[in-house]
């Protein structure tokens, strides 16, 4: 919101200081000031120019070359805007001035320049380039100002003010600060200056001559409605002072009446409306809209209303959307001679809901939704009438001030405990200072003994904003000065905080995967699109949909990390032949309960350019997964084949690991070739593993099992067997293990071969077997016995032991 310093100074004597400093102080005490604009400074080296001629640029289709008079001389300026015409008055930025190029980025100092070979002495500006309202046509047309060419722009616009631009969001809780008088009150409290009372001088006739009738049918939605009828008004342009005042804070100007309502709104924060009384049939009725009732709003929007929407109607139809916008039909225009003025208070939630539903956001909505003071309309009405009588000296107030009140006028009282307030602030604010701060903010002290102080909240702070001791703590703390609070570390707790095991294990997983196994961690979005669901053949019914998604590939909450990671592979494979990536993130499944099943997963992918890769990705992924799991002491997981429904996995190259309770902890697989094809990854070999980290972590983690190292030597020997392809290596290793569970310490597969020199349907496997006892040196016979037993077992499996004579 833009605030004029000149205007503020009409209400209180803000000390002279650098504008930036003023902005900083307000930011530290009340609300965030985004910019402070010193108009004089920003319009330095800018003048009004009168366009004398417009010609085409000889060397550029979209440019024109103008001759523009700037009083003592005529200069040549190149311009790109289509709306520049002869005799138009335009803002000229001369060399040496600062402009914002196309309204974006930092200010740039203008120099004399050649544009496509044609000299240009400065530029003709669009609004956004020099901090004025942008004009959709391009260049700001200032012809209406009616000033001499060469007049300094600041003077022509009456802009010698300092504008304080406050972040609207930081005023969300302060309905009292949406007008200049409220800001002035705040400034007076900050600078300890006196706030001038807001006085108006207007009288209403004792007897009503207007027959103005006002009826409020839904008092809950309209706690107050004041109305006044004025006749004999003359609609014309506002005087210059009024225009300038509105322009300086970014308002457009329309006519004297509309401008007057805007001025009072900017002054007091109370939105107002003026109806053309001639177009109001009967009287004013504040009521809920009938279903499907229609109204064309002032901005041209055709609205179709619902019963929840509150309207201002005459006896026939809606004439305004309450608290939002007036109707086109009853608007004030050149032919208007009589007015019905409205100053009202509407229920904030309803205004906000209707505004959101209809997509109409106005200055009025912005104020009403913050919960305005219901005492304000009366004051604002007085001010508006006073102003209109000043602008139209012939006008007459013909009605009494109609006032329909339906709100609780009893004051809000809060009792505060100064000890508790100080303990929350962490400072010792003396009682006198507390009283002083509250009084300057217009809180009345009702009772003041010991540490308990009773305070009456002024009505302009009592709507939502202040009702608790905590609210007053804020008032006291901010004006005491947050910078005066000294930092103090709290005492250390006696108990050490509980450890978050799951988090700890998660950080371990990252260490193992990245630092141990060479994977790179990536982050991906939590959603993907319908296309991904189809590509990966995922069950759509398990997905939670995003209502207001941002793009078609972000419509469903992920139930698997795979789809987005496949896209990561696609992005990177063009510049890396081998990719090892993983993500740790949440998945969300709709199991028809209110809260979805949200689990943490780890998903790793090994992808390699098929042309340059000779390995078996499945075994790489399996090795990585088993290394990861080994850190969590999960030795007794059982690997099962093809028991789970995993739609994106190769049906045959898939295995899942189960714990003793039968919970699936992890799975490893190669990507289904059809899925790969959908992601244009058919020339990439891809295997993946997924770990249900929530289930993994639920098992906690165990300490390592230590066994003393045997003092006795170990014996190793190799066994090589040719065997049917169908016999799994796991089966063979099981048989070997069974030969002697105690003495066989390790079985390592060191060769697996199919092809030349081996019969079709057969494979050759070679193992190194290590034997060792903890209590003795093994004898040769023991080794021979085990060796023979292994041979027998493998032969029983149909194997032929190689190298056996």
């Amino acid at each position, binding site marked *: 919101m833009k605030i004029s310093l000149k205007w503020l100074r009409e209400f209180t004597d803000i000390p002279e200081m650098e504008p930036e400093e003023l902005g900083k102080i307000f930011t530290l005490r009340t609300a*965030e000031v985004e910019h402070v604009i010193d108009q004089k400074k920003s319009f330095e080296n800018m003048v009004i120019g009168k366009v004398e001629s417009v010609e085409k640029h000889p060397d550029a289709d979209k440019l024109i070359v103008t001759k523009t008079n700037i009083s003592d001389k005529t200069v040549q300026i190149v311009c790109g805007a289509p709306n520049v015409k002869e005799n138009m008055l335009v803002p000229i930025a001369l060399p040496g001035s600062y402009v914002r190029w196309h309204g974006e980025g930092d200010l740039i100092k203008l120099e004399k320049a050649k544009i496509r070979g044609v000299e240009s002495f400065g530029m003709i500006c669009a609004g956004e380039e020099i901090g004025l309202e942008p004009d959709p046509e391009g260049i700001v047309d200032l012809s209406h100002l009616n000033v001499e060419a060469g007049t300094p722009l600041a003077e022509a616009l009456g802009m010698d003010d300092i504008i304080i631009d406050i972040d609207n969001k930081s005023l*969300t*809780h302060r309905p009292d600060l949406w007008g200049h008088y409220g800001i002035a009150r705040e400034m007076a409290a900050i600078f300890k200056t006196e706030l001038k009372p807001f006085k108006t001088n207007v009288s209403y006739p004792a007897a009503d001559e207007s027959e103005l009738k006002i009826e409020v049918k839904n008092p809950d939605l309209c706690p107050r409605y004041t109305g006044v009828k004025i006749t004999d008004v003359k609609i014309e342009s506002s005087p210059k002072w009024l225009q300038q005042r509105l322009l300086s804070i970014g308002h457009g100007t329309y006519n004297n009446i509309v401008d007057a309502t805007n001025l009072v709104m900017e002054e007091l924060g109370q939105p107002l409306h003026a109806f053309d009384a001639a177009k109001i049939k009967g009287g004013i009725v504040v009521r809920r809209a009938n279903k499907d009732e229609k109204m064309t709003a002032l901005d041209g929007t055709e609205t179709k209303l619902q019963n929840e929407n509150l309207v201002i109607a005459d006896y026939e139809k809606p004439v305004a959307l309450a608290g939002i916008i007036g109707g086109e039909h009853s608007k004030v225009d050149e032919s208007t001679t009589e007015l019905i003025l409205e100053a009202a208070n509407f229920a904030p*939630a309803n205004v906000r809901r209707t505004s959101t539903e209809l997509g109409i956001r106005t200055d009025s909505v912005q104020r009403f*939704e913050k919960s305005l003071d219901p005492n304000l309309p009366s004051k604002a009405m007085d001010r508006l009438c006073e102003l209109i009588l000043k602008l139209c000296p012939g006008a007459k107030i013909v009605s009494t001030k109609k006032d329909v009140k339906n709100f609780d006028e009893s004051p809000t009282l809060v009792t505060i405990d100064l000890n508790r307030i100080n303990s929350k602030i962490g400072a010792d604010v003396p009682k006198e200072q507390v009283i002083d701060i509250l009084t300057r903010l217009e809180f009345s002290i009702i009772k003041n003994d010991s540490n308990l102080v009773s305070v009456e909240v002024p009505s302009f702070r009592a709507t939502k904003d202040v009702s608790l001791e905590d609210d007053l703590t804020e008032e006291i703390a901010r004006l005491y000065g947050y*910078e005066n609070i000294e930092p103090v570390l709290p005492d250390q707790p006696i108990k050490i905080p509980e450890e978050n095991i799951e988090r700890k294990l998660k950080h371990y997983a990252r260490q193992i995967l990245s630092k141990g196994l060479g994977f790179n*961690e990536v982050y991906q979005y939590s959603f993907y699109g319908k296309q991904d669901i189809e590509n990966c053949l995922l069950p759509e019914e398990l997905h939670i949909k995003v209502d207001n998604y941002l793009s078609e590939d972000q419509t469903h909450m992920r139930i698997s990390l795979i789809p987005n990671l496949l896209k990561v592979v696609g992005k*990177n494979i063009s510049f890396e032949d081998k990719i090892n990536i993983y993500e740790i993130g949440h998945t969300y499944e709709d199991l028809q309960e209110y809260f979805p099943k949200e689990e943490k997963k780890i998903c790793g992918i090994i992808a390699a350019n098929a042309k340059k890769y000779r390995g078996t990705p499945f075994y790489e992924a399996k090795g990585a997964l088993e290394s990861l799991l080994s850190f969590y002491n999960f030795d007794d997981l059982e690997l099962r084949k093809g028991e789970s429904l995993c739609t994106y996995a190769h049906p045959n190259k898939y295995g899942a690991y189960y714990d003793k309770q039968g919970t699936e902890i992890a799975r490893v697989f190669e990507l289904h070739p059809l899925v790969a094809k959908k992601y244009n990854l058919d020339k990439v070999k891809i295997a993946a593993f997924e770990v249900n980290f929530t289930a993994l972590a639920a098992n906690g983690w165990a300490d390592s099992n230590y066994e003393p190292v045997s003092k006795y030597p170990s014996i190793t020997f190799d066994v090589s067997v040719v065997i049917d392809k169908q016999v799994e290596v796991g089966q063979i290793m099981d048989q070997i293990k069974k030969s002697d569970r105690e003495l066989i310490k390790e079985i390592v597969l060191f060769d697996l071969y199919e092809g030349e020199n081996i019969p079709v349907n057969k494979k050759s496997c070679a193992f190194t077997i290590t034997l060792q006892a903890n209590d003795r040196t093994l004898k040769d016979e023991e080794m021979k016995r085990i060796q023979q037993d292994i041979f027998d077992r493998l032969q029983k499996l149909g194997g032929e032991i190689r190298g056996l004579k």
Partner: protein
Amino acid sequence: MEKELNKLQKDALNDISVADSINILQDIEVKYIGRKGLINEILKGLKDLPDQEKKIIGPLSNKVKQEFISALEKKKNHLEAVEIEKQLKDEIFDITVPGNARPIGTIHPLSQIQFECENIFNQMGFAVMDGPEIESEYYNFEGLNIPADHPARDMQDTFFLSDKHEEKHGGLVLRTQTSPVQIRTMEKYGAPLRVIAPGRTFRNEATDASHEHTFNQIEGLMIDKNISLANLKGVMMEFLTRLFRKEVKVRFRPGYFPFVEPGLELDFSCLLCNGKGCSACKRTGWIEFMGCGMVHPNVLKAGGVNSNKYQGWAFGFGLERLAMMRYGIEDIRHFNSGDLRFLKQFKL
């Protein structure tokens, strides 16, 4: 005879000491102890000597032979070492050829910085909490003192999820902040509390170089009997000083968040200019960092904590900003891009 032997020894040792190659040394070996070597000849002639002389010359000549062998060995070792040293030095070897790469991966920069933050807070006695990313409207809004139709809802563009409704909880949303974990933690553990809750959060807004719809926050909550804003200042100053490994100052200014009262924004002194004002801090000397404040009594109530007995503060800050500042990352979208050329640069 004795004299002869002494001379022979002297000659032999001299021969050894001047020898400068293994070959010469071999010749010397043959000359003295070869089959017809000078020392051997003497030993052979021993048997012809009279007994008395034998008793003297015998041991002496053996001693001469042993000393000769030992000197010869020593010299041989020395010459060999010199030889090998020379050979090694003459070998051509290029140490600038790149080493054989061992694959080592990287941890996402946001995980790294999150881990660091968790550690610092942990040391200050804060436990680490988790909460779901899909939240109910109750936990994300009402419980945090943001009723429906409250204009504060505009401050957080929300992703709404379809098809779910519950009396108390309303609909489901993607949490717009980590603050719901405040309520969940209070419900579960009661007061006093000293926790942080890091996690993923979402806002329905278009992405550009400085905006992401998916980002990460760390929520903090401290509740006890006398917890003050002064403590919040102290904790954050300590945290930032540790994180950036240099003295950092903080300041409060008013801010509005419905779940705290007073509501504050916390800025820290610009790391580049130490608060003097530069382009990084828009000449203010301060970097906007986080929203915070004293927990609103309605929020304590929603968490089942007695606000007459307990008080405390809460804060929430974004991790992306911290990481961007630390590494000078210019575009927030890199974090979720999955671009390995970006990610592989963060080694730690």
